[in-house]
Each structure stands twice: as structure tokens, then as C-alpha cells.
């Protein structure tokens, strides 16, 4: 493997240095612009959080307004110091975000954008309708009881401190389990949920963080400018904030800071430079939106990943040692019972309809601890539907799924995963833009016991657990013969290798039951044979498996029992020898030679 070319190494500096120089230039010419620059950078971070979680939210201007007015009112009307009013304003934004997040976050894409835009307008209308409290349409200034001296209280160093604090927060989260979960969620929410990541909670967390950061920016804005007007928080403000983060790139946080800095400084620079010229150019300089639109367009065309994409892949290039502990290939709670032990999972009269189509009707069977159960049948028989039902992607129309004595048919996917059921996908669902190693570490999500606080404090235990997770993931990759590809993007791998990564990722969860959906598809006979040995090895280590496959050699060799589906109904069940002689199975599936 070759290292990055000299050009690629130079590229990040070619982006950072001019933007920083530009920012520095305008600040030196007019130190008053520094506050605005810093506030916009903070706003950019607030938009980054939602964008990163794949939420197209335009609520930032609304939260900025709430933060600004709340802090102004608390500071001026209630006479509190800003050390109290700003944190209170941030908390108010958080509370509002929690409440409106409940219904709003059920929406996606454009619908979410429209709805959050409506929220922003609503905030503005409320401000206009409450002149006694906010100054109403006149704005919050001397005439409405907000004297400049009482408002203007912040110093620039405070903004620098907030930005640095946020930078630290983002840096710490990005390298933690939480940051990894966000990246997984953004790449493939379905796969993330079956890895045990509560995608609804993570989306809410992103919305909440974004609102609080925007609220903080608003509060500082109020005390930096010294007066407020509802038109400061109009629709174009929402778009500006979003464009900072789009320009910076939704992949990595520091891009947004650059994006915010660039889009704030560029119009100022042009005004300074072209403002003294005449005619066409002068008019041009007075239309910052055109300039910024153009800059955004150019970046989107030439750097689709935003400014941050010049920094290449996330690091993680450090050499990762593998640690093949004794527990590597074992489920979390190893089977105490022997092969013919307790039923681990029982399906009772499972039916599932899609519209008028009966994908499954009244299917029932048991999976006992320590066994390999094969599930076969023609294409369209309902095999994958059954796996989707067990893993909680959708509930059955009727019937019960009983896991260790508990009915789980209505549990969401992340809780099924947490309970110890892992799966792979027939149509591969890897996190394509994450490295192979990262994909596998996501599988450890529910096992790494960290949260926001330990992340922020960089607790030694967390670092230890992260190191341990990496080492274990590496060992799993070695075991599957993929260690040479650990730092590659998963999307670059061949089909069969991607299947192996999926298995490694599922095993990293240490599940008690592993559901494999066509693991040998795209593998030749030799590779299939090797996979069969690997699966038998898993069984030796105490795993219980359900496997869907069309490679009959593999199924017949490794399965203890086989269930055959046809048109959504169970048509046979029994040992491989029994099933392979069954008249109905020969007719529907195997064919007669």
C-alpha cells in the first residue's frame, strides 16, 4: 500500500491557510468583525450536529432567536448577570428542543426541513406578538427597555473560550463510541439499529445538542451586538447557518468551523475590496448572497464531501495490535446446557402480511441452545422476512417470538440486538464509508460502557475499553482472514469479503444467537467450504446459529436441523437426511436429478 501522495498531503493546508488568512485579514482591518466571525462558527457547529446525524433541520435560526431573547430578558429585565442568563437560555432551548423534537423528528428529509422552518417562523411571530416582553416588532433596544449598556456585556475572549470548549467537545465525541454510533447511523440506520444503536435516541440527542449550541450562539449574539431585532432570525439566517455546515462538510466537525469562517469573511472582504470600485463590480459586492451561493456551488461541485473532505479518511492509521483473548469467539453468556438444551428462541404461529401478500403464514419452530438451524426454500418463500421479524426490524402481523421465555415481537431492533441476537444481511448493509475495522468496532457498541460524561473527561477506563475493542475487532478480522484490509473503506471490498466483514461485525456483538442470511452468496465452492468450517467452529465455541443458504452442500453438512419454507408456509422440518428425501421439498426446491 502506498502512502498519500505529496499533493494530498499539501491539500489540507491549501484549504486551511487561505481561509485562516482571510479571517485574520478581515479581523485585523476591523476587530469588531471578530465577534461575528466566532458566533457564526458556533452556529456552523450547531448545524453540523444535525447534518451529521442526517437530519435536515432548519430550526437553528429559531433556537438562536430563543437563546438571544431569553438571555436578553433574563439579563436586562430580571437583572441577572450573563453568567446566569446565558446558561439559562441554553437550558430553555434544550427544553424546547426536547418538546418539539418528539413529533418533528418522526419526519425525514424535506418534510423535516419544512417543519423546522415553520418552527423558526413561529418563534419570530411569537416575538412580534409579545412586545411587552421582547420589544415586539420594534426590536429589543433602548426604546423598548433594553438599554445598550445593559445588553452589551460579552467580551471576545468569552466567545473564544466557548468555541474552544465546543471544539474539545466535538473532538472528544468524534473519537468515542458516541461519535462512532453517529457515523454508523448516518451511513446505514437499519444496520446501526441491529447493532444495538438506539437510532431514535441518537437523533434526539443530535437535535438537542444542535438546539443548545444555537441557543448559546444566540445568547452571545444578544450580548455582543447589544440590541435585537426579529429580522435577525429570518429564513435567510437559517439558510446561512445550514450553508456553513454544508460547505464545511457533514463528515467532520472542523470543516464547519472553516465553512462558517469562510462564508462570513468572504462577503466582508469583497465589500472592502470591490466596495470602492464602480459600476457593475460595485453592485456585485453588495450582494453577499450571490458570492456565498457561488462559493457554495463551487465547493459542492469540486469537493462533494465539503471542505473537511480534503483531510481524507478519518485517521485510525495507528497500528492496531490484535488480542486474541480466550473469550474472542464466545457468546457473552456461554451455553451451559448441551446442544439439545433449552429452546433459546421459539416462533409461535408467526404471520406477516404486506398489503395483500401473505409473506409468512402461521410459521412456528424452535431454535435450541447450541444448534445450527438451516432455513431453506425457494426465492420469495419468506426466509429473509422471517429474519427481519426476529431481529425486530418490523413486528409480525400475528404470532409470538419468544426469546428465553420472554415475548419480544414488539421490541425495536436495537433492544433485540442488546438481548443477544445479531444478524448479517443478504443484501450487504455495511457502513461503506467507514473502515473495515471501524465497522467491526461498531459491533461492540452495547459493550463499551461509556457515556457523554466519561467521554468528555477522557476517562482512562474509556480509553482502555476503546483500545480493548479495537484489539478485539482486529483479532476477529484476523480470524476471518481480513486483517490486511482493516484500514480500507468497507465499500471498496469485494462482495465476498464484505460478507465476511458483516460476519465479523455481528460476532463482535458476542451474540447468543447469530442469524446469517445467505453468508456464502458470492463465494466459490472452496471459500464456501472454508466458511462451513468456520461456522462449525462457532458452534464449538457455544454459538447458536440460524442460517439461510442456497448452497445445499453447506446446509447439509453443518445443520443439525432444517426448516423448509415455501410460499410463506413451513412445508418440512427435520434432520438434513430427512428433509433431503422429502417429496414436497424435492418438488418445490431441490429438484430431482
Amino acid at each position, binding site marked *: 500500500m502506498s502512502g498519500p501522495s505529496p499533493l494530498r498531503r499539501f491539500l489540507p493546508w491549501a484549504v486551511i491557510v487561505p481561509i485562516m488568512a482571510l479571517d485574520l485579514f478581515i479581523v485585523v482591518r476591523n476587530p469588531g468583525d471578530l465577534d461575528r466571525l466566532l458566533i457564526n462558527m458556533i452556529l456552523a457547529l450547531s448545524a453540523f450536529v444535525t447534518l451529521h446525524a442526517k437530519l435536515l433541520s432548519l430550526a437553528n435560526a429559531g433556537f438562536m432567536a430563543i437563546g438571544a431573547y431569553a438571555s436578553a430578558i433574563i439579563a436586562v429585565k430580571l437583572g441577572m448577570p450573563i453568567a446566569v442568563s446565558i446558561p439559562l437560555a441554553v437550558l430553555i432551548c434544550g427544553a424546547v428542543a426536547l418538546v418539539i423534537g418528539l413529533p418533528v423528528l418522526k419526519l425525514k428529509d424535506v418534510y423535516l426541513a419544512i417543519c423546522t422552518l415553520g418552527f423558526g417562523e413561529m418563534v419570530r411571530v411569537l416575538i412580534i406578538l409579545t412586545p411587552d416582553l421582547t420589544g415586539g416588532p420594534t426590536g429589543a433596544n433602548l426604546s423598548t427597555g433594553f438599554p445598550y449598556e445593559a445588553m452589551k456585556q460579552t467580551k471576545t475572549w468569552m466567545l473564544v473560550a466557548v468555541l474552544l470548549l465546543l471544539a474539545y467537545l466535538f473532538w472528544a465525541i468524534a473519537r468515542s463510541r458516541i461519535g462512532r454510533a453517529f457515523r454508523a447511523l448516518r451511513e446505514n440506520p437499519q444496520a446501526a439499529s441491529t447493532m444495538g444503536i438506539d437510532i431514535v435516541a441518537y437523533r434526539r440527542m443530535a437535535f438537542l445538542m444542535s438546539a443548545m449550541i444555537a441557543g448559546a450562539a444566540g445568547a452571545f449574539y444578544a450580548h455582543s451586538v447589544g440590541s435585537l431585532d426579529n429580522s435577525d432570525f429570518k429564513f435567510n439566517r437559517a439558510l446561512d447557518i445550514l450553508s456553513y455546515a454544508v460547505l464545511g462538510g457533514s463528515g467532520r466537525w472542523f470543516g464547519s468551523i472553516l465553512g462558517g469562517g469562510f462564508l462570513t469573511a468572504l462577503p466582508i472582504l469583497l465589500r472592502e475590496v470591490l466596495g470602492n470600485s464602480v459600476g457593475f463590480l460595485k453592485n456585485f459586492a453588495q450582494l453577499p448572497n450571490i458570492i456565498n451561493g457561488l462559493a457554495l456551488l463551487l465547493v459542492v461541485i469540486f469537493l462533494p464531501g465539503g471542505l473537511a473532505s480534503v483531510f481524507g479518511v478519518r485517521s485510525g492509521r495507528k497500528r492496531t495490535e490484535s488480542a486474541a483473548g480466550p473469550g474472542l469467539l464466545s457468546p457473552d453468556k456461554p451455553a451451559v446446557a448441551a446442544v439439545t438444551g433449552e429452546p433459546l428462541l421459539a416462533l409461535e404461529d408467526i404471520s406477516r402480511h404486506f398489503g395483500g401478500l401473505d409473506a409468512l403464514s402461521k410459521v412456528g419452530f424452535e431454535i435450541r441452545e447450541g444448534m445450527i438451524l438451516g432455513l431453506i426454500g425457494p*426465492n420469495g418463500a419468506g426466509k429473509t422476512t422471517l429474519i427481519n421479524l426476529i431481529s425486530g426490524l418490523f413486528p409480525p402481523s400475528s404470532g409470538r417470538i419468544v426469546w428465553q421465555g420472554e415475548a419480544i415481537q414488539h421490541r425495536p431492533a436495537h433492544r433485540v440486538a442488546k438481548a443477544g441476537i445479531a444478524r448479517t444481511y443478504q443484501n450487504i448493509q455495511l457502513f461503506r464509508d467507514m473502515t473495515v475495522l471501524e465497522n467491526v468496532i461498531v459491533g461492540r457498541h452495547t459493550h463499551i460502557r461509556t457515556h457523554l460524561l466519561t467521554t468528555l473527561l477522557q476517562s482512562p477506563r474509556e480509553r482502555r475499553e476503546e483500545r480493548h475493542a479495537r484489539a478485539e475487532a482486529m483479532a476477529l478480522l484476523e480470524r476471518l482472514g481480513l486483517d490486511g484490509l482493516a484500514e*480500507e473503506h468497507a465499500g*471498496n471490498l469485494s462482495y*465476498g469479503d464484505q460478507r465476511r466483514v458483516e460476519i465479523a461485525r455481528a460476532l463482535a456483538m458476542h451474540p447468543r444467537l447469530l442469524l446469517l442470511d445467505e453468508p456464502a452468496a*458470492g463465494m466459490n*465452492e472452496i471459500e464456501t467450504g472454508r466458511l462451513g468450517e468456520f461456522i462449525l467452529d462457532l458452534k464449538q465455541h457455544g454459538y447458536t446459529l440460524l442460517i439461510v443458504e442456497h448452497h445445499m452442500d453447506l446446509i447439509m453438512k453443518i445443520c443439525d436441523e432444517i426448516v423448509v419454507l415455501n410460499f410463506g408456509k413451513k412445508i418440512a422440518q427435520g434432520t438434513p437426511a430427512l428433509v433431503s428425501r422429502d417429496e414436497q421439498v424435492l418438488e418445490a426446491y*431441490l429438484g430431482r436429478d
Partner: protein
Amino acid sequence: MAALLEVKDLEVRYGSIEAVCGVSFQVEEGQIVTIIGANGAGKSSTLLALSGLVRPSGGTVRFRGEDITGLRTDRIVRSGLVQVPEGRAILNPLTVEENLELGAWIRKDRHAVRPSMEKVYALFPVLATRRRQLAGSLSGGEQQMLAIGRALMAEPRLLILDEPSMGLAPLLVKTIFDTIVAITRVGTTVLLVEQNARQALRISDQAIVLSHGRILRRGPSAELLADPVVIEAFLGKS
């Protein structure tokens, strides 16, 4: 006479991965040529480079005597080279018939589209019974037939199939291989990538074995079927 397809020193890279490193081969008109090899050997990458879905980083591809290296996929399809992608890529929200019609998108002879469609239905009678059904509601095997049928609607000179038997039940695998033979009987040349190496070698005329992006073996399929190295690495004991 020159070969229908001539590939010379083809190279494909993804980032730091060299997927195909200098592969050369030819496909003669009227034949079935099979490419086999382990996972990651560069089979799919070779096909993607031929049909312009990835840009080759080196080498040339000549089709019907013309250099098509690095052309856009739609141009390549117009010249008569059509690929059925791995994983089928059928258009789920459209009906079977609409999928087939889109396959004939590039054709100028609109009056001949209907007869082509009847030919596809004759080849896959099950598709005829489902012509008004949404493609997404078909089973995996029917989707594969639709994908092949759609490619045939372009009346290709060279049909490229990437693992057509993947994920199919044993009975259907046999149907698909029978169909491939039937397609060549009416004059279409086929380039086939398969993991089901034994069956693929049985129905093909020539074969290439890829390993780590390079050609390991080549020759008449019958010979490779008996080649100890090929048996050891890809076929296993029957």
C-alpha cells in the same frame, strides 16, 4: 477477423487497492466466455471497467474494432455491450413490462421493440404472467430473469452477466444456466462471471481464471475443468 471484444493490459484501482493489474483477453463472436476466481480476484472490477461503470486506470478495451476505453456507460451500451449488474439492479417501483421497455431505451427501431419483448417472454414465460406486476414484488429468481430480459431488450452484441446465479435456489440456478445457453444460440455473445464455477465451465467455450487481479490460467473450458490447479482452488472435489 478481429475478436468482438479485445481487452489489453486492463488496470483498475480503488484508492490503494489494485483490483485489476494488467489483464488481457479476447472474446470471439458467438462464444460463451467465463471468468472465474476467488473473492477479490478482480472479476467484477474487470466487468465494471468494460461497461464504463468504473474508469480503468490503465489499458485499452476495444469492442467491435473501436476503442471504448473510458467512454460513458450509455455510449458503451449504445455500441452493443450490455451488462446485467451483480445484485440485479431492477427498478422496483416499475412494472415488469416497464422495466423491459426501459431496456430498449437506446433503440431507434421502435416498431421492433414489441417483438423483442415477446422474445423475452418466450425465453422467460413466468415474466409474461407477471407483466403488470411491480418488479419489486417478484421473487429473487424472477428478478434475475427480469434483469437478464431487460438487458436483452437492448439487443446486445455482447451480454455481460455478473454472478447471475447468486442467491438463487438450486432449481432456479439450473434454469438460469439453461437460459444463458439459449441466449447464445440466437447469436448473442456472453461474457460470464460466476462463483458456481463448475456449472459455468460446463456451459462455456473459453474460460479465464483470475487471481489477485492477474490471469492465472486461460483456455478452453473443458480443459480448465480438468486442470488440477483449478480443481484444487475453485471447484473442490465433486
